[in-house]
């Protein structure tokens, strides 16, 4: 009865878009999948050629084309890396055809020309969005281990803080301004080895979708961007797996069908132990234990044609034990766990739904035993939520989406110093949001998306409304002009250091600490100058208001009111991104260029010495880079060999050049030398420009007839450019000397993968 009432409400609510003529029309819907694995394909395009009416598959691989006049048409479906699908369909009045589309992966033919429809990649080319394929992630030369985040850092608008950091700095925002979702579940610290790698195992991942800015009302909670990653469903046809042995980490995965669906499990573990053991022969200060471990899994249960369930999990952690001196020991255990249970229900060809229950945990437990004095921290975040999303197609001009996200989060931080409690904080907050969005296509050339998101956060009792709009105009089939505006709120802030992310702590807004908010304006164009090529330009401007972050001068938070541990500020960022890509053929690749500025301003920070109470001057954060060019190319040399090259050039990062110095003569409380620098504007100088060339060669072979195999040989920083991370100033010398701290030198690596 309740179900009928609910459906009645939904139909009543959404029915205003539905017109009477629908009963005389027909519809087609279904899933789009990989024919070999049964994996659903996200963002694949499907259309009826004769009337140029189409859709793209959603994040669950489902598509629906409604309000089709009866007749006979050619249904065409395409997706990057797959052969096009064509099928003739005849529709009678009132038909609601269910057509499951299976796309065949492209073979490895050298002279293959892939036919792409003009609608191809439409969803993937929405304003502010970017995509990177899991194959490219695996092919790219990276430091020891294929890495999702380091691959994303090659895209325009996405920057890296350093060779040692996999953190995402997108369109002027720091890592905490990007919402990271794994199967719709928030991941709070997606890093291994203190930020060197991201946590996502490329063997377990199906899809990586990045919204760099102007993201739609479906998402919220972060000022800047959204990274949505989906685990693989698992092969629905055959059991298969792979084993990769690498220099830093090795990984294995298995996937396959079972009676009611499919499964996919993957494991990855670092394998540094032999290296550490060798280093310990001649060095004292080597960790006695240092590893990370990832487990990914997903089980799908296909309850029927219209109901699919899945259970997805991730667990990963880093363990370090480092006796760094006599009577001194450092231990760290940190990681993430996520669990999500998803139910997809298709009410009919017009109403599609998805419900998910999520649980996420982030923890870090550092322990330092120093001269008989222990320091211990227990830092935990638990986040449990339920989400429900409905997608309704009242007619062929509108797609209405609505959804809600309700959750509770607990952030618990406890410090013990010398066996006594020294700091304790427990934040228990409830959050909720609701969004409504309509995509309106008044004609083939125009698309408007309008929506709003309402957010609530219990600590401080904040209710915030976020309007989001975007428009797209296609003057020709090869050109799309786009614009978007959105407001975004963020109730969380991250305490971290860009050089070291193992101790990350999240804090929330509260009374006296209002949430940060941002307005984003984006305009752009997506073009296809030639078949198989793309050229995109986006210009963006975004504000950042009410930024709150831990006061960097705070020596000790104990006993202070919550609002006094923060500094408050503003910021803005603006830039232009250019992206030229070759999508098909033996040679594929892209060139991305970003021209960008980003600024921050905090009260009383970066004042001139002569004006200490000034309001604070704007300054660029360290990661600001005016010019950033990435060139990525992949060339299939033969059936057995493939080469991939990536090159990055970027303006040197910002740093503060010391100008003067002095020395205290009698600091009565300490026996240390007390040397002090005087500086001018913060970060007004630039490090030398950064550039680096990486290459990788892949050789495909068979593994004793039991499966395929791949050798991968990589050289990172081919010409061993000693890029500068930052400068250290040595007061032992007089005058002070400046020493470079360099980034990675040349690094050759090799890995071997067997697929069975």
């Amino acid at each position: 009865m309740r179900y009928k009432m609910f459906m009645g409400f939904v139909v009543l609510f959404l029915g205003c878009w539905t017109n009477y003529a629908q009963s005389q029309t027909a519809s087609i819907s279904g899933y789009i999948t990989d024919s070999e694995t049964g994996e659903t394909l996200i963002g694949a395009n499907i259309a009826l050629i004769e009337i140029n009416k189409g859709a793209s598959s959603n994040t669950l691989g489902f598509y629906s084309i409604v309000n089709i006049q009866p007749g006979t048409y050619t249904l065409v479906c395409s997706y990057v890396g797959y052969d096009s699908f064509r099928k003739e369909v005849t529709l009678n009045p009132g038909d609601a055809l269910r057509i499951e589309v299976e796309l065949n992966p492209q073979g490895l033919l050298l002279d293959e020309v892939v036919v792409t429809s003009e609608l191809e990649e439409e969803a993937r080319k929405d304003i502010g969005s970017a995509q990177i394929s899991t194959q490219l992630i695996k092919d790219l030369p990276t430091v020891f281990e294929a890495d999702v985040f380091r691959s994303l850092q090659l895209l325009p608008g996405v920057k890296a803080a350093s060779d040692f950091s996999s953190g995402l700095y997108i369109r002027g925002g720091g890592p905490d301004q990007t919402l990271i979702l794994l199967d719709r579940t928030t991941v709070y610290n997606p890093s291994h080895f203190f930020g060197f790698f991201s946590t996502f195992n490329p063997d377990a991942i199906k899809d990586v979708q990045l919204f760099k800015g102007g993201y739609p009302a479906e998402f919220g909670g972060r000022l800047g961007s959204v990274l949505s990653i989906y685990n693989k469903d698992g092969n629905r046809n055959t059991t298969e797996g792979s084993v990769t042995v690498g220099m830093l980490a090795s990984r294995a995965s298995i996937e396959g069908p079972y009676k009611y669906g499919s499964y996919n499990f993957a494991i990855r573990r670092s394998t540094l132990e032999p290296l550490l053991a060798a280093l310990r022969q001649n060095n004292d200060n080597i960790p006695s234990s240092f590893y990370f471990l990832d487990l990914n899994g997903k089980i799908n249960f296909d309850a029927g044609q219209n109901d699919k369930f899945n259970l997805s999990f991730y667990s990963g952690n880093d363990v370090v034990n480092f006796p760094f001196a006599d009577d001194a020991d450092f231990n760290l255990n940190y990681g993430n766990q996520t669990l999500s249970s998803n139910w997809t229900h298709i009410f009919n060809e017009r109403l599609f739904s998805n419900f998910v229950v999520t649980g996420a945990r982030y923890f870090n437990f550092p322990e330092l035993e120093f001269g008989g004095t222990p320091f211990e921290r227990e830092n935990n975040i638990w986040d449990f939520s339920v989400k429900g999303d409905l997608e309704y197609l009242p007619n062929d001009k509108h797609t209405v989406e609505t959804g809600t996200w309700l959750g509770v989060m607990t952030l618990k931080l406890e410090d013990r110093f010398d066996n006594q409690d020294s700091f304790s904080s427990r934040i228990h907050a409830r959050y909720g949001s609701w969004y409504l969005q309509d995509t309106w296509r008044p004609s083939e050339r125009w698309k408007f998306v309008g929506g709003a998101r309402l957010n609530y956060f219990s600590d401080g009792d904040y209710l915030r409304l976020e309007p989001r709009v975007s428009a797209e105009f296609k003057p020709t089939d090869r050109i799309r002009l786009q614009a978007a505006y959105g407001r975004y709120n963020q109730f969380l802030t991250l305490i971290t250091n860009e050089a070291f992310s193992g101790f990350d702590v999240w804090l929330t807004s509260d009374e006296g600490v209002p949430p940060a908010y941002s307005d984003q304006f984006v305009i752009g164009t997506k073009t296809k100058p030639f078949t198989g090529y793309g050229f995109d330009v986006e210009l963006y401007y975004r504000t950042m208001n009410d930024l709150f972050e831990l006061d960097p001068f705070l020596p000790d938070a104990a006993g202070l009111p919550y609002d006094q541990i923060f500094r408050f500020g503003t910021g803005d960022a603006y830039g232009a991104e250019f992206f030229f890509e070759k999508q098909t053929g033996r040679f594929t690749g892209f060139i991305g260029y970003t021209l960008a500025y980003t600024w921050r301003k905090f009260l009383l920070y970066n004042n001139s010495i002569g004006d200490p109470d000034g309001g604070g001057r704007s300054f660029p954060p360290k990661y600001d880079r005016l010019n950033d060019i990435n060139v990525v190319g992949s060339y299939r040399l033969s059936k057995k060999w493939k080469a991939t090259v990536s090159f990055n050039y970027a303006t040197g990062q910002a740093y503060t050049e010391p100008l003067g110095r002095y020395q205290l003569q009698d600091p009565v409380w300490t026996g240390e030398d007390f040397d002090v620098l005087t500086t001018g504007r913060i970060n007004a100088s630039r490090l030398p420009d950064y550039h680096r060339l990486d290459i990788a060669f892949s050789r495909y072979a068979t593994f004793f007839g039991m499966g395929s195999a791949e050798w991968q040989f990589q050289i990172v920083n081919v010409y061993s450019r000693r890029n500068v991370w930052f400068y250290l100033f040595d007061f032992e010398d007089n005058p002070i000397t400046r020493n470079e701290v360099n980034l990675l030198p040349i690094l050759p690596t090799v890995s071997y993968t067997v697929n069975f």
Partner: protein
Amino acid sequence: MRILNLFVLFLAATIAGCDLYPQDDYEEFVVVEAYLVTDRALPLIFVSTTAPVTEEYSFENTGIPTADVRIHLMTGDENSAIEQTFTYEIGMDNVNQRINGVFAAVDAHDVLPMRTYQIDIRIDGREQITGFTTTPNRFQSTGVVPDNVVYQSEEQIEVGIPRSTGDRQNFFIFTTISLEPSEEQLTPIYADFFDPDEDELDEFIKTSSGIVNEGNFELNPDGTITLVYPWIAVAFYGENQIVTNIIDDNLFDFVRSESVQLGGSTLSPGEIPNLIYRLDNAIGVFGSIAADTIQTNVLRPEGF
């Protein structure tokens, strides 16, 4: 077409040539250093200038040779009238030679607790330098300090300290001073850090904590807080003095900003802020402290 060309030129100039955020040039500042300690005599005052970072630095060369230096005791807060003025003269070394930049009080005066003092320095050709500090209240550690404690034993040194009065919590810096320093007396961790070829033993004689908030400690029923002294503060076996310093706002700002100037906080590596200064027309610090000292003998445990 001309407009388009101009626009392109402007854009190119913006991208390539125009620096939106130029680097400052070096500027010389007067540096003042003075710490009033409650119940102790007026301190020496050091007055010097900064030096360019590219040049060799010495205090002797940067010390200000002549200046009119005074400290005023105020009747109330910073806006009140001057109650008493203490004049300073140029300091002399052991052989009665003037020391540039060092000034000594002419009049005898023990610093009063919970009073506001003003520093007043006039240097020819420069603007008048002023600053205020309000001294912390005097205090005495409570509890029985054992004559001997065994290093890293369960019996740790405990110091009772009265809690703050008023809204502002106390900020502490704890200092350990070894009275019997020798290489053989170094505790294990400091012995491991000490490199005779590179380090001076003097660097370990006086060790200090960072700033520690009173809020870290639970309040005892008698209105005191109890500090359990961590073993990490002990660099040498033998007789050690443990000094508890309560610092004023000026010193709090100065020390906390100095401690992160070259990293160690949430600031990015290479982001070097200036310190927080509370002086007009000068940098440095005019701060105040209330301190109390206890002494104990740290015994080497068996097997160490």
